């Protein structure tokens, strides 16, 4: 195997390269479908569908495979990168892990999360683009993403999602992009006010120059924690696939099973234009694989590449590739499901292959079991169609696992570096036609390996009761295995009606109050503005090695909304988006090495043509999304706007009319003008009110005129 002088970010290169390599086989478009099955403790299994479509740069507007909608989206809104996820259920970090392999890809906050980087000349233009983009996405995915167009829900992240400075890129969300090297990071800090350690707030200028704005892009983030995710989102998502769900892996997606599980995350990730190209260029400089595989046909021929790169013509080819990548689009679609298989929970025994519904403690679980459907073949349009099953090595190769009935046979075995995990690879393109395709994995319900977790357990909750005020508390508890000095990044959005007082931010370490600024590396706290913008908190905390428990707390007042601003069920309360806790110092990537397998067929032994593995190898940041919060607000009585308007108006009218009446009363009681000087009625001071004689308008007018004259007389003429 090759061992070139890898750059720090070499893994990422595979994401892009593999796409290009695939792409080469069908001129400018290519498509790969992959599936990862991983057993989880508690009678659950994780199934991760991973589809990558690639559009080469030179492609015209007539596509064979690539979704036209996405192409138009990218062209129209000058997208650089976009990530959209629809999630239902909560990722169980305790049991399903956070720090390795698939977890950083699969874990998403409940509801909708949209993040994108746009090329725009100014912030205002970026805002306009963002507004249109959210509407377009709403249309494409049948979701209320357009609610994010409201300026009050839009967020311009400063630290977390912003690509800062020369090539500084955050690795909080931009999972596929490389992590910044140390030098670049330092630059970014300087640019962003490197003296921030002592301050809790930084004022980084967001808007770079026009050209910078175009090159680096403007970042926008939005989350809708309350969005219900359903088949109406899945169907348009499937439409972006060349085979839809008519053939290939997507045929497994039986709706009842998909939505009957514990967790479900539908994601779309788009890279376009320059961003991947930069990586390719970096790669070319470091001399890694460049040569696109040009093998004919669908059969993967991976024995190329590295040799070609070492042949010397590095620079020229590198430029060539980057030029082609510049206009290209990569569309990654993933669907992560966590389904119940154990103890017969929710899995009736109805699969035609005669599998078992009840899983014994050590049993094989097949895809047919899980989905109640059989896989009929790969998508004919796909260049790559693979299935990976994960588990402990001993499960596969120990006794008791009968993988013999599996079609196709596992082709490769990958083992994770430094971990006991083993990955079996099946190539659907090599499946024996005419036989039912089925893949099973050993499932040992009671004896699953412990998931690799983040260094800290993260929980966030609301304190206080009542509808007037409250507090938010974030607790980080160090887990076994998470020792050492840790850097934690905290990102939190708060809608404007949660009026958080930043001066009440308190940091506690092991029960002791400490000054926040002493432990904050960088921070950006943007206060909310009523109906204009959300509050954004971004903190980078340095946690010493001996601290076991960190608590961050703050107080807020609950706002009071107008009647139209409440959702239809206003008394339910308002959902707050999940906060994101990132551990930048922990790498979530898993390096897979091919350890064993059927080496016939000349398949590649590297990661080319395996976008999913490349993705998992990329230096993924370890993120933990906290659960959302539900905050009830005081509501007006929704049934009586008319009553309130009339009641208040009546009171005001009464106040003014009686005051006015009082002011005029005396003039009325007085003999009008000089007439009737002997009017006895006008003399009684108390009985004046009893005067029933109505005030003739003429008298009123006269009175007014006289008063006015007097006033003029007094002030002006005198």
């Amino acid at each position, binding site marked *: 195997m090759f061992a070139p002088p890898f750059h720090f970010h070499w893994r990422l290169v595979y994401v892009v390269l593999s796409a290009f390599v695939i792409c080469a086989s069908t001129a400018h478009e290519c498509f790969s479908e992959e599936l990862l099955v991983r057993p989880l403790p508690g009678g659950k299994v994780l199934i991760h569908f991973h589809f990558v479509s690639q559009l080469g740069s030179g492609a015209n507007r007539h596509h064979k495979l690539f979704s036209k909608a996405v192409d138009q989206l990218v062209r129209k809104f000058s997208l650089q990168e976009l990530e959209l996820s629809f999630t239902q259920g909560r990722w169980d970090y305790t049991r399903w892990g956070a720090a390795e392999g698939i977890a950083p890809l699969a874990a998403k906050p409940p509801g909708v999360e949209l993040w994108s980087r746009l090329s725009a000349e100014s912030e205002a233009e970026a805002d306009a683009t963002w507004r249109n983009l959210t509407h377009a996405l709403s249309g494409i995915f049948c979701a209320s993403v357009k609610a994010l167009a409201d300026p009050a829900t839009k967020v311009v992240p400063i630290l977390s999602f912003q690509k800062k400075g020369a090539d500084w890129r955050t690795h909080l969300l931009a999972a596929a992009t490389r992590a910044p090297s140390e030098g670049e990071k330092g630059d970014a800090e300087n640019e962003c006010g490197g003296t921030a350690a002592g*301050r809790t*707030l930084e*004022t980084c200028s967001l808007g770079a120059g026009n050209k910078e704005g175009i090159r680096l892009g403007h970042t926008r983030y939005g989350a809708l924690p309350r969005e219900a995710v359903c088949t109406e989102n899945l169907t348009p998502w499937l439409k972006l696939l060349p085979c839809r769900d008519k053939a290939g892996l997507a045929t497994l997606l039986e709706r009842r099973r998909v939505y009957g599980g514990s967790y479900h995350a539908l994601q779309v990730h788009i890279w376009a234009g320059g961003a991947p190209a930069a990586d390719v260029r970096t790669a070319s400089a470091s001399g890694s694989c460049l040569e696109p595989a040009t093998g004919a046909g669908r059969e993967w021929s991976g024995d190329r590449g590295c040799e070609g790169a070492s042949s010397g013509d590095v620079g020229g080819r590198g430029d060539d590739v980057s030029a082609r990548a510049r206009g290209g689009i990569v569309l990654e679609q993933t669907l992560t499901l966590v389904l119940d298989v154990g103890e017969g929970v929710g899995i009736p025994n109805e699969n035609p292959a005669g599998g078992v519904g009840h899983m014994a403690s050590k049993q094989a679980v097949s895809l047919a079991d899980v989905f109640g459907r059989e896989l009929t073949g790969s998508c004919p349009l796909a260049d790559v169609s693979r299935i990976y099953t994960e588990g402990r090595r001993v499960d596969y190769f120990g006794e008791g696992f009968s993988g013999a009935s599996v079609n196709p046979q596992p082709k490769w075995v990958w083992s994770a570096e430094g971990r006991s995990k083993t990955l079996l690879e099946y190539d659907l393109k090599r499946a024996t036609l005419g036989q039912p395709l089925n893949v099973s994995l050993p499932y040992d319900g009671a004896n699953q390996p412990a998931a690799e977790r983040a260094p800290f357990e993260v929980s966030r909750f609301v304190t206080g009761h*009542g*509808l*007037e005020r409250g507090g938010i508390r974030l607790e980080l508890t160090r887990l076994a295995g998470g020792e050492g000095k840790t850097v934690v990044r905290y990102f939190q959005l708060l809608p404007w009606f949660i*009026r958080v*007082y*930043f*001066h*009440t931010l*308190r940091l506690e370490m092991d029960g002791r109050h400490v000054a926040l600024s002493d432990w904050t590396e960088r921070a950006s*706290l943007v*206060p909310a*503005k*009523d*109906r204009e913008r959300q*509050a954004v908190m971004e903190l980078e905390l340095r946690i010493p090695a001996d601290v076991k428990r960190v608590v961050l707390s703050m107080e807020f*007042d609950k*706002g*009071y*909304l*107008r*009647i*139209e601003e409440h959702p239809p069920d206003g008394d339910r309360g308002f959902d707050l988006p999940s906060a994101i806790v990132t551990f930048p110092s922990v790498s979530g990537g898993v390096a897979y090495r091919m350890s064993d397998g059927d080496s016939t067929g000349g398949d590649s032994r590297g990661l080319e043509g395996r976008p999913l593995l490349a993705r998992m190898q990329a230096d993924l940041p370890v993120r933990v999304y906290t659960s959302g919060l539900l905050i009830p607000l*005081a*509501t*007006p*009585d929704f049934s009586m*706007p008319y009553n*309130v*308007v009339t*009641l*208040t108006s009546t*009171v*005001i009218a*009464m*106040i*003014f009319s*009686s*005051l*006015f009446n*009082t*002011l005029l*009363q*005396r003039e009325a009681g*007085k003999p009008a003008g000089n007439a009737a*000087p*002997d009017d*006895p009625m006008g*003399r009684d*001071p108390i009985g*004046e009110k009893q005067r029933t004689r109505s005030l003739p308008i003429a008298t009123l007018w006269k009175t007014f005129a006289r*008063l006015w004259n*007097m*006033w003029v*007389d*007094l*002030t002006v003429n*005198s």
Partner: protein
Amino acid sequence: MASKWFHLVGFVAAISIRLTFSLSGASKVLQHRVEVVTPTNSLKRLAEARWLIDNGMSPYEGWAYHASPCYVYLLQPVIGAIQRQDARLSKISGTLLCIAADLLAAVLLQAIVFRACKPGNFESASGQDVPSCSAVEAHGAKQLDLTSPEERKSAYVHDGASGDAPFNDLAGILYLLNPYTIAACIGGSTGSIDNCAVLLALYGSVNGSIPLATFGLVLASHLTLHPALLIVPCFLLLHQGLDRRKPCQPPPASDTIDIAPRNQNEPPTKKRPAMVDISTYRESRTGSGVILLAAFFSIGLGFWTVALLALCKVLLGERGSLLQMWKATHGFILAADDLTPNIGLFWYFFAEVFDHFRTFFLFVFHYLVLVIMLPPLTIRFHHRPLFLAYVILGLTSIFKSYPSVSDAALYLGLLPAFARELRQMRFVFVGVNGLLVASVIGPVMYNLWIWKNVGNANFFYAMTLVYACAQAVLLIQSTAAVLQYDKSRNSPQDLST
């Protein structure tokens, strides 16, 4: 008459009540009460503004702060304690600040009321003495020789003996012991300081000091906007001195015009002084005097405005512009965007009203006070500028977008100045009981709605209506009583028939 000792005891009592409540934890309860703390006077928001400034942002950057930037700097020690959340210290420092403000307000109020009730108080600003009211009255009564002893007696009772204004030297203590003032002080808000500024304006006007009056006016308007309406009464105060009781016309030197026909039971002739005869008041200022006064007044206003804005700009520095400040302070008050429940009429109305009528009603609410009410009141009470100020303050308290009880405390504190006139006030029972009901049941309803979650917004809304109505009853009835008083004093002859 209260002695000095009495005053001392009163002040000490007022301070000790505040300290006792504050230390016993009442401030913990009151500092979040919507009756006391509003978005424009909250100390907690002030601390947030301080935090924003400490972190290099404009205090108006966020949702929180809507008061003057001066507070952020002047109240630095207090805010520091609040920011540190040093419970005891912040409680004490906040209370001490409010106590100081309350004491200052009480002293100013005492001075105003004392002067307003002083016999011969209406010597004009020009220094031309007008005979004291009591003398006039006594003279008039003697001259009139009322037909029956009872009537004469009633006239005296009605009038009250000169100088016998029972509360004139108790006004400060009454203000300090007003439960509303105490609540506002213990809860900790800048309301006490806002009140001080208003009283400073009135004090300056009463004393004929243009610089002081304009300074108070500008400061108070800058702090809470609504005192800008006091420009009219302040000008009138400067122009013609304190409230005249209209009936106190200088006795005719030697005439018996009124008496002679009366004795014959003839109707009064046209010669008797007109009821609102302007000529009576005009003598205080000549035409050039008014113009000169107006010029000085506007120069004072302009000077202080410029000075204050310059101070704000210096304080804000590069962080924020004055326009941003204006939008966040006065704009915020006018737009009534924060619908957090309070004891005013705005919040629920604008939470419920349909979106497309919002601007219209906002306009109407402000228009009512500014255009519909202010000119007629001015015309009617131009001879009683202090009373005009009282009515304006009362209206402000009802029609403010973010009122608190300290607003009510302010205009109620001015009531002793009109003790003589208000003797004949009616519906006092209704008004006072309305205030009592609203003050007691209001918090209960709020508690049911917000904390117990068993009621709904209408519970508290009803109480705000009661509160507004009660205040309106007091205000309107006092207006009626003063008009009545003036009328009865103006035409004492009428009593005889």
